[in-house]
């Protein structure tokens, strides 16, 4: 079949095809070139908007990172003090809770002698006086 071909080889055929193609590209009319130029300008405008957005995004990311770092530093330096304060407040609250429970009234009812002694002790009684020892 190939003996009918004018083109002797695939490479030569490709070269000729490419030449014909490039010649047709060079023959493009002015209207087409103008429209292509306008289309390119539109694409360039889109691209520059994209780049601006990209830079803005990088700026936002760096600011967000800086904010996170500042927040981390704040947590690192302020949180321990806050924890101490919280610990002290929670201990006080625990004592208040213990004092406000009904246990002390139960103890008073069961062991009135102890509370009498404690009352005497607080009224400057002798330290060696033990309830029930007399």
């Amino acid at each position: 079949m190939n003996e009918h071909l004018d083109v002797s080889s695939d490479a030569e055929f490709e070269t000729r095809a490419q030449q014909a193609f490039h010649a047709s590209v060079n023959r493009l009319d002015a209207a087409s070139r103008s429209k292509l130029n306008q289309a390119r300008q539109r694409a360039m405008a889109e691209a520059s908007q994209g780049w601006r957005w990209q830079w803005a995004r990088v700026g936002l990311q760096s600011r967000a990172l800086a904010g996170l770092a500042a927040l981390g530093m704040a947590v690192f330096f302020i949180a321990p003090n806050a924890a101490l304060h919280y610990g002290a407040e929670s201990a006080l609250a625990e004592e208040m809770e213990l004092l406000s429970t009904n246990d002390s009234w139960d103890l008073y009812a069961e062991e009135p002698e102890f509370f009498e002694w404690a009352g005497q002790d607080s009224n400057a009684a002798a330290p060696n006086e033990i309830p029930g020892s007399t």
Partner: protein
Amino acid sequence: MSATLAAPRWTAAAGERYGDQLNAEAFLDQAQSQALDRFLADVEQRALRIAQIAVRDRDDALDIVQDSMIQFARRYASRPVDEWKPIFYRILRNRTYDWQRRRKVRGRVIAWWTSGATVDEEEAPDFIEQAVSPDSGPDARLESAEAMHQLEGAIRRLPARQAEAFMLRSLEGLDVAQTAQAMGCSEGSVKTHHFRAIQALRAELGEHWP
């Protein structure tokens, strides 16, 4: 006193740094912009001819190329420059397929709507005119123009993948890897399609090709 002196110094330094950053951004923007402009200017005319061969209509081909350029610039301009060409032709190929699908659907709708009536002359593509003389310039009689007309017709009669492989490899000059990337297939597949395309084109054009 030292604090009041220190504050303006720090502000000035920060301003310089910020100015440098702005200059760097502007420089990068400008460099990228110039590279992109050169790239698009380099490929746009060949892309138009390739699209025109595929869709047979100059205005539709212009729309396809414009959409491809905008999509490329919007989404892929930040990619490395050596990846631009296959990506651009991948977009062009997808846009061309989209156009062909829409055209097919539109043809079916028109066929159903007219249901045997004669198609309006404005709607009907003039295939004879397009096949014989798609170029309207004075150079249309030149031998290379005639050769291109025949080549275009033969390419259109190829299976789609063979036509793609031939146009990207032989006409646009992409290498095998770039063609594979643009076509979304393996390099072996590109070689096969390209070889078969050349054989088919040589068989068809050989006797009469100017």
